[in-house]
């Protein structure tokens, strides 16, 4: 038998020429998928036709035409100008901005608090470590909604009326109308200080790039972080002095039954923010702890052996590796915080879900309303996953 014969045998299809289609995996897969798709299509059609019939009977118009109508309800707090005479679209925008506001502030505070607690958990101080552990257990094992109700009740029941407001520091008042504190009076210097801060960050970013390139070329290091921090403090201060160092403050004052002046943070917002931050920080603390522990002791010892200072060990060896472990679950916790902010409806903070709920009750547009809620939150989570994919690609270990 020569090689040609062997080839010809291998080429011949050994399967019988007529395989019944239910024994052919490829064909079976096609049948299976067609059946599944048909089933989904049929169920959707059934629900859709029912819905159409129901809507016609209740004479509810479908579509988003209602967005142009006058909303007719007030919203307690708003980032932009809003009154009851504005449209539903405006009301929904106010709700969305309120959601973004509480999530944004919440994310920043949670990251700070969670990192502090996570590091405390690893502290060699027994008392601090046990306290952090107790905090994490307590917060993780009580439903967030119950915690929100609790903080809201504290604000409403346990805090005094404005006349007997608690005054922990000068210019800060705590009462059942919320948290009221003094702020510097509006002045042109503040805008200039903001710009100075932005410029400092931009310069710092450029310095960081230049420093890294120079390090790659010459091996000399440049303390970009410290210089940036110094710039971020010094430049706004210079701007402040340039405008004549205004120090006028807008201090809240008790007039009649309520405070005038200053900035008021409503009890709803405070309770929501407090609950979300305290709850999510417990989860973030666990993530931070796991991330730091994931860096092997050998790495630290090796870094010390090559003569890096403790600050450099943290900055150049521990953090880059720990962050790779920390960032993905951290982003999912941030997303959780945003999703949990929808519980605002239970304590009367006008977030997107609460405003949409009012809209549904007034217009009967249940389908559009729920679809809007889902779309908005899907937008948040999809943009987060886009960021995550980008980050994972950037941080992935380059293996040789």
């Amino acid at each position, binding site marked *: 038998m020569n090689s040609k014969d062997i080839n010809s045998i291998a080429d011949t299809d050994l399967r019988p020429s007529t395989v019944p289609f239910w024994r052919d995996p490829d064909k079976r*897969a096609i049948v*299976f*998928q*067609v059946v*599944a*798709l048909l089933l*989904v299509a049929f169920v959707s059609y059934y*629900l859709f036709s*029912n*819905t159409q*019939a*129901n*809507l016609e*009977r209740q004479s509810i118009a479908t579509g988003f035409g209602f967005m142009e109508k006058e909303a007719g309800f007030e919203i307690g707090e708003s980032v932009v100008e809003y009154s009851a005479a504005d449209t539903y679209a405006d009301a929904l925008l106010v709700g969305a901005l309120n959601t973004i506001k509480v999530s944004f502030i919440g994310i920043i505070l949670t990251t700070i608090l969670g990192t502090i607690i996570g590091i405390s958990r690893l*502290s*060699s*101080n*027994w*008392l*601090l470590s046990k*306290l952090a552990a107790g905090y994490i*257990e*307590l917060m*993780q*094992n*009580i*439903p*967030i*909604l*119950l*915690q929100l*109700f*609790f903080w809201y*009740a*504290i604000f*409403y*029941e*346990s805090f005094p009326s404005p006349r007997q407001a608690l005054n922990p520091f000068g210019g800060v008042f705590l009462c059942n109308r919320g948290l009221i504190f003094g702020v510097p009076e509006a002045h042109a210097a503040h805008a200039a200080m903001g710009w100075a801060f932005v410029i400092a960050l931009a310069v710092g970013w450029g310095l960081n790039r230049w420093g890294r390139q120079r390090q790659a070329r010459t091996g000399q290091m440049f303390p970009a972080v410290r210089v940036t921090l110094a710039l971020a403090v010094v430049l706004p201060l210079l701007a402040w002095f340039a405008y004549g160092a205004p120090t006028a403050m807008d201090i809240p004052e008790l007039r009649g039954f309520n405070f005038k002046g200053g900035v008021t943070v409503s009890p709803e917002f405070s309770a929501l923010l407090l609950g979300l931050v305290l709850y999510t920080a417990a989860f973030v603390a666990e993530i931070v702890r796991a991330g730091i522990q994931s860096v092997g002791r050998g790495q630290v010892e090796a870094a010390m052996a090559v003569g890096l200072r403790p600050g450099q060990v943290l900055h150049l060896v521990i953090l880059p590796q720990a962050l790779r472990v920390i960032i993905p679950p951290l982003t999912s916790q941030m997303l959780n915080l945003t*999703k*949990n902010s*929808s*519980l605002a*409806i*239970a304590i009367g903070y006008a977030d997107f*879900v609460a405003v949409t*709920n009012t809209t*549904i009750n007034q217009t009967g547009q*249940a*389908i559009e*309303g*729920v679809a809007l*809620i*889902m779309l908005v*939150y*899907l937008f*948040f*989570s*999809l943009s987060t996953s886009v960021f995550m994919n980008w980050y994972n690609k950037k941080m992935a270990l380059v293996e040789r």
Partner: protein
Amino acid sequence: MTNPPVSSREYLKPPITEVGVIGWLRGNLFNSWYNSLLTVVVLILLWQLVPPFFRWAFIDSVWNTPAEACRDIDGACWSIIPRNISFILFGFFPDGEQWRPGLAMALMLGLVIFSRNRKHWKKSLGIYWSIGLIAMGTLMYGGVFGMQVVETARWSGLPLTFMLALFGMVAAYPLGVFLALGRQSRMPAIKTLCVVYIEMIRGVPLISLLFMSSVMFPLFLPEGVTIDKVLRAQVAIILFTAAYIAEVVRGGLQAMPRGQFEAADSIGLNYNQTMRLIILPQALKIVIPPSVGILLSAFKDTSLVVIIALYDVLKTTKVTLSNPKWTGYSTEAYIFLAVLYFICCYAMSNYSRKLEKELHTGR
């Protein structure tokens, strides 16, 4: 030069500052100047917080008095709990029949404690649970053995909370496994359907699904058909939990080495057999601890049904608080509930950690 006698070295005790209470304190609380500072600051903070709380909760408090007696005390009014306990725990369940949900919960607790032991994880456990669930359902609904019929609309309080969590998990698990298998499937249409479902559900808050069940779902049904509100919320919780279970199970499937699939193929098993006999038993074992974690969050999430006005234990508490007699004692009532939730959740998370350690023995 003479060496000191060996015996005197042997009997030399370690310095008093290195052992015992003082040694422990030095090692754990005052081992450097900033740790000492930290300890002192923490102790001062605790001193500011703990004694006043202790005073409020235990010394100035009353435990079982009428509401009027609470008006002129400084401490906690725990009386709100014993005076309303049957409403908080069992809600609108008829007064004389409340032993039934009590017994059902005791039965469930017994089954849970029985299932904790891994030696009992056999086929018989499934049978016990089936019998138990039927018994609990009968106890709750009644209609036999001379028990009065109690409609599901009157099921409220703690039994509702447990029911939503338990059935949420039991029904969501198979669905989640199918979704996970679908996501790993080579068939593009099936895979897409599963991915879209999982990602969509995980991207939205549970509250939007509950809204869907309460305001949108009635529109989906043909005229004249209504589905019970509790059931609709239960379905929403099941659909929500299933997506999370699918992701956990997918983790287990991905942890299976390729060799397992190839070995199954080479001995001629088809897809169903491969999954049923080789892959799933191993994959599901890996994901038991994270599954307990999902059960834990499902249990916590059941409290969200408050927002669509179902009477779970949080809602019955709120109703109690809206009674003018008991208004103003939210802190006490919520602390009681927090303790209740904490006990359940802590037991679960502890168990999950214990299992993780026990099962971490290689496959």
